[in-house]
C-alpha cells in the first residue's frame, strides 16, 4: 500500500497498460512535451516516445475522430481532452461515431477507446469551463462513463477502461488531481459498474460520485454529530449504473439524497431517483432529493460560484429534511 495522488494513480494506470499492450497510445493537447496541462501525463513522452504519446493541435473533433478510426481497426487509443468542456467540440464524434459504430455495422466493428480529462467545476473558470458533462454522455447507449473519487479507484477504473472493448469516458476532476489516497501496490482493474459503500450508515443514503463523494462524506461526518448516520454510496461508474448497491442501501435507510455537480434538469440524479422510486418504492419514507449545481450558468465570482456548487451544508439540510419527514 502506498499513498499517491489521484493524478499519479491515473498516470500509473496508463503507463502499466501501455507497457503491457503496444496497441495502447495516448493523444491530446499538451500531453507530451508540455507534460500535461494538469501534469497527469508527466514523463510519459520520455518513457514511450512521440509515436505513442502524441501532442495534437487544438482540434478536438479531428483527434477524437482519429481515435475512433484507429480503434475501429484494432488500436486502443487514450484520447485526453484538456477538459471535458472542450469535448463539446467533439460531441458528434463521441455520439455518432464512437457510440454507434458497433451497432451500425451489425457488430462487425468495435470501438475500444478511452476519452478522459477533468470534468465539472475547477476554481473560478467561468461558465464555459465549468461544465459537468457526464450526464450528456451517460444517456447514450454504446458508451460507458466512470467518475472516480479516490486515487485507488482512479487507477483501477482507468485500467479497466483501457482494457474494455467499448468506448469508456473517464471523468476526472481538476480539484481531485492533488488529492492523496492509499493505493495497493498491485492495484488491478476495477470492474466497471460497481459502486462502493464508502461510509456505512442507517438513517439516510447519500449517493455521490467524483468530487461530490468527498462533499457527501463531509456532510455525513457533520450529520453524525447530530446523531444522524448517513451511508455514503460512491457510484464510481455512471453507466453502467450499480442500481443493486444503491437500492440495497435505500432498503436499509429508507431515505435517499443524491449529490452531484451539473444541472439538475434530467441529470444523473434524476436517473438515480427514477431507479430508486421504481425499485425501492415500498421502502421509502421520504421523497428522494437531489443536491445539484444551481440551474444557472456558472458565475465567475468566487462567492457566487460556491453558492452554485453543491456544498456540505446543502447536503446536510437535504438529509435532515428527509430524515425528519420520515420520523414525523
Amino acid at each position, binding site marked *: 500500500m502506498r499513498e499517491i495522488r489521484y493524478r499519479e494513480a491515473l498516470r500509473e494506470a496508463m503507463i502499466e497498460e501501455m507497457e503491457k499492450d503496444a496497441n495502447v497510445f495516448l493523444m491530446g493537447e499538451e500531453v507530451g512535451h508540455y507534460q500535461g496541462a494538469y501534469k497527469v501525463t508527466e514523463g510519459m513522452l520520455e518513457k514511450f516516445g512521440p509515436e505513442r504519446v502524441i501532442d495534437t493541435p487544438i482540434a478536438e473533433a*479531428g483527434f477524437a475522430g*482519429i481515435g475512433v*478510426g484507429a480503434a475501429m481497426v484494432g488500436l486502443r487509443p487514450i484520447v485526453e481532452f484538456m477538459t471535458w468542456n472542450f469535448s463539446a467540440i467533439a460531441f458528434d464524434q463521441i455520439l455518432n*461515431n464512437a457510440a454507434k459504430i458497433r451497432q*451500425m*455495422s451489425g457488430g462487425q466493428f468495435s470501438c475500444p477507446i478511452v476519452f478522459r480529462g477533468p470534468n465539472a467545476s475547477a476554481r473560478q473558470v467561468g461558465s464555459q469551463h465549468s461544465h459537468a458533462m457526464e450526464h450528456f454522455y451517460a444517456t447514450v447507449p454504446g458508451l460507458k462513463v466512470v467518475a472516480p473519487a479516490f486515487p485507488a479507484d482512479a487507477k483501477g477504473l482507468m485500467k479497466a477502461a483501457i482494457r474494455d472493448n*467499448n468506448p469508456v469516458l473517464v471523468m476526472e476532476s481538476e480539484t481531485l488531481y492533488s488529492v492523496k489516497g492509499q493505493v495497493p501496490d498491485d492495484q488491478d482493474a476495477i470492474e466497471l459498474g460497481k459502486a462502493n459503500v464508502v461510509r456505512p450508515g442507517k438513517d439516510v443514503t447519500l449517493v455521490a460520485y467524483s468530487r461530490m463523494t468527498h462533499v457527501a462524506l463531509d456532510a455525513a461526518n457533520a450529520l453524525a454529530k447530530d446523531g444522524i448516520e448517513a451511508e455514503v454510496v460512491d457510484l464510481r461508474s455512471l453507466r453502467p449504473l450499480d442500481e443493486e448497491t444503491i437500492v440495497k442501501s435505500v432498503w436499509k435507510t429508507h431515505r435517499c439524497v443524491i449529490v452531484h455537480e451539473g444541472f439538475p434538469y434530467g441529470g444523473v440524479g434524476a436517473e438515480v431517483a427514477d431507479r430508486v422510486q421504481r425499485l425501492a418504492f415500498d421502502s421509502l419514507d421520504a421523497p428522494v432529493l437531489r443536491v445539484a449545481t444551481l440551474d444557472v450558468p456558472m458565475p465567475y465570482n468566487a462567492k457566487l460560484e460556491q453558492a452554485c456548487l453543491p456544498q456540505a451544508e446543502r447536503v446536510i439540510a437535504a438529509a435532515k429534511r428527509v430524515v425528519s419527514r420520515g420520523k414525523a
Partner: protein
Amino acid sequence: MADSNVLERLYRQMLLIRRLEEEAARAYAQGKIGGFLHLYIGQEAVGVGAIAALQPDDYVVTTYRDHGIAIAKGMSPRAMMAELYGKVTGCSKGLGGSMHMFDAEHNMLGGHGIIGAHIPLAAGAAFASKYRKDKRVTLCFFGDGAASIQGFHEGISLAALWKLPIVFVCENNEYSMGTPLSRTISVDDISKKAAGYGIPGWQFRGEDFEEVHAQIGKAVAQARETSMPSLLEVRTYRYRGHSMSDPGKYRTPEEVEEHKKKDPIAIGKQKLVAAGYDEAKLKGIAESVEAEVADAIRFAEESPEPELSLLEPTTYDGPFAS
C-alpha cells in the same frame, strides 16, 4: 490498364452497381426499402476506378452515398440488398440501412451519415496503418458539401501534419443536396484547398474509370511509398436527386441530359467494343449482371428480419451497460 480482363471486370462492376441501384429505387417506391436512399447513379466510374487502384488490405471510408463504393470494395450484392431491405442477412444485419455499408472482411469501414464526420475517422484508420507500419492506404470519399464543415478541415489538417497514408477524394457532383457549388463554396475547385495544408492536390473528371484509376493510382502510390496524403477533386454528376425524396427541381432536364451524354457506363462499353467485344459478348455480361441482381433481390426478399435480441450484443461488446 488496357488488359481486357480488367476492363471487363470494371465495366461489369459499374453495370452491376447501376442495375442494383435501379432495382433498389424500384423496391423503395414499392415501400420495401425505408428511410433514406442516396443513389450513386452517374458516379459509378469514380468508385470503381478509384478502388481498382487499391490492394484488398487497404481501407475505404465513405459517406451515405455508399452502395457503389461498397460493391466496388468487394461487398456481395446479396449483403448490400439485404441491408437495404433491413434484413438480418444484410452487411450490417439490417441495423444500419442504406447509409451504413460496413464490411470488415473487405476493409470497408462504412457508410457514414454525418457530413464530414467520417473524414477524421478515415484519417484514424490511416493513423493506425502508420502506427503499425503495415503499408496500407486509406481512401476517403466525400462530397463537395463536406468541404465546408469542421471534419473536413480537422481531418485533412491532421493527416497532412502527421503525413498519414490517405487519399482524400472529393466526389464533386456539383450540388450540395439542392444547392449548387457556386452558392456553397468560395473556390471552383476543392482540390485547391490542398495547398493550404501543404499536400498535393489536383482535379480531374470522373466519367472514365481508366482515367480515375490512373489519377487515384498516383495518389495511392504516393501515400503508400512516402506516406504523403493528397486531396483530389473528381468532377462527377448524379442523375437522380440527392435522395429518393428529392425530385431535383433545382436543375433543368437539359442539364441532366447533357451529363448523361458522358455516361460512365456507355464510356466503359465503348472501351470494350474497341477491345474487340462483340454484341453477343456484351449481352453475355449484361445477362450475368441481371442474374446477379435478380439473385440479390430474391435473397433480400426471402431473408428473415433481425430479432430484438440482436440489439443488446451489437450495442456493447460484452454485457449490456445500462
